[in-house]
């Protein structure tokens, strides 16, 4: 049942994406309003699907890559909606909704119907805490990544004096810069908290807070990158292009930590791949 709901959610996400793209191309305001409502409906349904899975498998659904990605897509969508509700960033939807859709596609294809018994190491209250906080920070940092991409795109238009269709459709540089910073300021503390809760959980499960497994090492690298970026922003006043590039580098490292390490580098965290 929850798998079926997730598939319906995916269809709704595809519709919202199409709507946002229509809005981007035609600039029709009603397309944007409708897309927002469609995405909202999809998000509510998605939350329902995850709740049902929780009930069905009897523990918080954070144990396989499919479940993890599903929660990530939900967090991204919910955060985007909240964000648009507060401070509207023109055409951000056309950038975010395809990402939500793609993650959901991956979630649908990776989430298996059969539920394996939970390994003892995952039977801890710290699991849902650690995973949810990490995924929430990933979602918010995804937003800052996309906003930084928009910044670089718009920056290029203005610098190269190409004031065409893209220029007209993207928000102003300063708006994008402020919004990216806002996301960093929320996403980074959550990332920090995610690493701390992970470390506590590691102590409970393996008896050591930190064991330099590849996942932990890469998390630390990611954390340092974001810390450096925020530090430079707040002290020296880094902003604009350089900050946007750093945000993107930080995010790519984050993606590697999340996916690359799981699939490429063996270690204690590799159970997240589900099959291993």
């Amino acid at each position, binding site marked *: 049942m929850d798998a079926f709901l997730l598939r319906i959610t995916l269809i709704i996400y595809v519709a919202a994406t199409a709507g946002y793209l229509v809005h981007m191309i035609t600039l029709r305001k009603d397309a944007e309003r409708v897309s927002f409502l469609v995405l909202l409906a999809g998000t509510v349904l998605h939350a329902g699907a995850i709740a049902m899975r929780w009930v069905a498998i009897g523990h918080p659904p954070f144990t396989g890559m499919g479940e993890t990605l599903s929660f990530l897509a939900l967090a991204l969508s919910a955060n985007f909606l909240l964000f648009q509700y507060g401070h509207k960033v023109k055409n951000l939807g056309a950038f975010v909704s395809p990402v939500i859709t793609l993650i959901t596609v991956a979630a649908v294809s990776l989430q298996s119907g059969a539920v394996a018994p939970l390994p003892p190491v995952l039977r801890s209250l710290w699991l849902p805490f650690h995973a949810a906080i990490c995924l929430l920070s990933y979602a918010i940092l995804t937003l800052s990544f996309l906003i930084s991409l928009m910044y670089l795109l718009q920056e290029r238009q203005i610098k190269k*004096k190409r004031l065409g269709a893209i220029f007209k459709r993207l928000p102003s*540089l300063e708006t994008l810069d402020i919004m990216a910073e806002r996301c960093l300021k929320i996403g980074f503390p959550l990332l920090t908290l995610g690493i701390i809760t992970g470390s506590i959980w590691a102590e409970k499960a393996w008896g050591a807070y930190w064991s330099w497994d590849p996942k932990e090492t890469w998390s630390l690298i990611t954390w340092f990158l974001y810390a450096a970026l925020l530090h430079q922003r707040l002290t020296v*006043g880094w902003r*604009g292009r350089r900050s946007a590039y750093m945000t993107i580098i930080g995010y790519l490292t984050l993606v590697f930590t999340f996916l690359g390490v799981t699939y490429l580098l063996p270690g204690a965290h590799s159970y997240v791949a589900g099959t291993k």
Partner: protein
Amino acid sequence: MSQARNRQEIVLLGVNHRTAPVEVRERLALRELDRPALEMFAGLDACEEVVFLSTCNRVEVIASCRDGRRCARQIMDAWLSASGLQDEGVESCLYRYENSEAVRHIFRVAASLDSMIVGEPQILGQLKDAYREASEKKSSGQILNRLFHKAFSVAKRIRTETRIASQAVSISYAAVELARKIFGDLSGKKALLVGAGEMAELAAQHLKTHGVRDLMVANRTLERAVQLSQELGGKALSLDELDSALIEADIVISSTGAPGIVIPADLVRSIMRPRRHRLLFFIDIAVPRDIDPAVNDIENVYLYDIDELKEVVEENKAERQKEAKKAERMVEEEVIKFTRWLESLDIVPIIQRLQEKAEQVRQKELQKTLKRLPNLSDKERAAIEKLTKSLSGKLLHDPIIYLKKGIDSEDRDQALAAVCRIFGIDDNRDGS
């Protein structure tokens, strides 16, 4: 009297920037007349209602009348003789529109589709002024009132539903648009004028209307800086203070008459750290240029010179032309609606007469019958009264519907005459 003469018509005569040179337009504006031009036209016996529009790009007379040809002739004669242009052969400069063509023209003028710069907003205000004058002097009536109110609402609709006026078509406005794409909200931003040229002043005024509060003016001669900064409400500086001003400013407009570079790239590079890498937007409208083009290569700094702004303006103009096509379609819809209303006007008196006649017949027959039946109760009388009313009402229902909706515009005169003959009513459609 021919039937055509009974219909309401609209006539428009005029010249604009395309048809007549400025000397002719000036003369036709009739500014040196001893009484207002509007009064003169309103006094013509063929004109029922008149509005007189005079702007720097166009002069037009719009009138409603019963006989378009005669009215146009009278207007033309009066106009040419009052302006002293009778023998100058300017008649070929004048355009003349009637009815739906006149309606279309006024709608297009109001929507700024007929302007020299398509989409420029002033014309609507000028049209409103012309209409206000006419309505104050009571030279406009039922028809022109409706025509102008429709023109205003069409213009408003076009402005909101198309992007005809959404893009900057002047250099100073293009600069403001760019600033808004860099900074978003301009309130709280600081602008610095280097040099005190006229175009810089214009751009500064645009910036102020878009929320820029703080303004600094730096000039070679401090006197002129003080003068301009007082006009614009800002702070005056000398050119020596440029470095510190650049640290504070967000938008810099440069327009000095200096022969060489006034703001070198090294200077800008050196101030970026003290200004904490805040975005900086340079607008160079001086010829020769004041700002080193290499400034544009510095991170978080954007430089546009006058040629680049001109290019933006040209592109925007092309875009406007495209939007204008959409607007023309909207005008066309409204012209059809208005023309239909105009044509329905001569039907109203016929319908009235039809109803009057029916009522007279009904009253007469009712009195006759009631006299013969003196012993009826009040209730019975009321029932008979009701019967007669519903009889006459139902009989007239279909003819009235036919008059309102069923007549083809081509043979409407014959159709109306036929209706009048069938019911034996007067076919004088001017209502008098």
